[in-house]
């Protein structure tokens, strides 16, 4: 502290921290005060935002509460629509599998050769359903897994010779029959139709003393396909409607 002039030096050596020193004892409280004020401002901003968000939340909650009853109704209607659509799908599967035989039987009488006498026509019943899982354990399934039921028709009868039967089989290849009966003549095909089960002499003698021939032929019928018919494109449906109107 040697000085040529009078100098009132209030700073101690330990307080000389920068070129323009402000006393630490002043700086520290000011800085902490600023930090405190910053916290307050921060809190105030957050609180304002919270208030705004809470107001929005409350207004949205009121809005939603007002619409909840209508929405519950709509949701119930949506569930109902889904259920009805699923029911309709099953009903349409059933109706898609409906095959008509009446017309074919009526036409059969017309094409029957004179020398053929049918003794039996048989479209056999389907085998009983087994809905139990393999092994027979567990809950039975709600329905069969397959969607196709095979159908067949057996024609049994008598004749005097083979030509009327051949003529009958030829007649059954006409379109009015093939929409019900399936004709696959290729011998390499896995499921040939018609299949001749037997063609033999009758054991009993006919009135004229001659022996009659017995035949047993099986035709495969169009299967019953339990599948929903594909939806018709709107354009096609409109065209069809126009066509119907013209008719």
């Amino acid at each position, binding site marked *: 502290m040697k000085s040529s002039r009078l100098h009132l030096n209030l700073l101690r050596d330990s307080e000389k921290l920068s070129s323009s020193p402000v006393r630490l004892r002043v700086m520290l409280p000011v800085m*902490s005060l600023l930090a405190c004020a910053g916290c307050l401002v921060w809190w105030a901003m957050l609180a304002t935002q919270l208030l705004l968000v809470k107001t929005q939340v409350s207004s949205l909650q009121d809005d939603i509460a007002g*619409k909840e009853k209508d*929405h519950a109704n709509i949701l119930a*209607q949506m569930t109902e629509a889904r259920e009805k659509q699923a029911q309709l799908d099953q*009903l349409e599967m059933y109706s898609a599998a409906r095959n008509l*035989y009446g017309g074919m*039987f009526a036409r059969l009488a017309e094409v029957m050769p004179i020398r053929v006498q049918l003794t039996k026509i048989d*479209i056999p019943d389907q085998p009983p359903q087994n809905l139990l899982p393999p092994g027979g354990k567990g809950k039975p399934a709600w329905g069969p897994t397959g969607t196709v039921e095979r159908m067949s028709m057996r024609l049994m009868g008598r004749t005097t010779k083979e030509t009327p039967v051949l003529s009958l089989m030829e007649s059954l290849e006409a379109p009015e029959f093939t929409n019900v009966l399936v004709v696959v003549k290729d011998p390499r095909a896995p499921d040939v139709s018609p299949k001749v089960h037997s063609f033999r002499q009758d054991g009993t003698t006919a009135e004229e003393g001659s022996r009659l021939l017995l035949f047993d032929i099986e035709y495969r019928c169009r299967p019953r396909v339990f599948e929903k018919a594909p939806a018709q494109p709107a354009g096609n449906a409109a065209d069809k409607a126009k066509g119907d109107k013209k008719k």
Partner: protein
Amino acid sequence: MKSISQMAPNAQRSFFVTLAIAAVAVVLYMFAVQPCGESLERAKQTLEQLKSKKQVIDRDLRESAKIKVRLEELDAAISPYQEAMLTPLLESWAMRAKSKLDLFAAEAGLLNVDYSELPVRALPVPKPLPKQLFARRPIKVSCRGSYAEIVSFLMRVEKELPYVSMQSFRLDAQQDPEMQRSDIVFEWLVKGESTVPDPKGGRK
């Protein structure tokens, strides 16, 4: 503590004031800023959830008219099936079928017409699975008549009852060609099982 005690009284005061203010700042941060920030985050999340919920509600409400139309269409499509569905008459399915088919049998000229029930057959199930399933109730019709009469009966049933399917057909020729024997099995739609689990256990 020695160094604090060595400080000038002003510096000491400053130090303690700083400490006190810093403590207040820390308390403010811990008990005001931080909880408020967390609350704000939660509120924002709630707001987002509510916004998306409202969007869904508004979208569903806009669809309301479409759903009503769709329901009407579905009702109209299902209604013919429901009308055609076989219901038991005094607990007898065969008697209900008789009440519907006797007229056609009489018109066709069939004789000795007998009706009997066969075990119900399940229908293949669609996806998604409906709560209410439908099934098929086969009714066996045994009758006598000429080939033409039997075929006429079958054609009438096919024409007048569009939801009845022929499941099987058997015609046995008799000595008298006007008196053939026939067994025809017709399938009728009936209400089947419910896929909703029964609270008592088992299937409904």
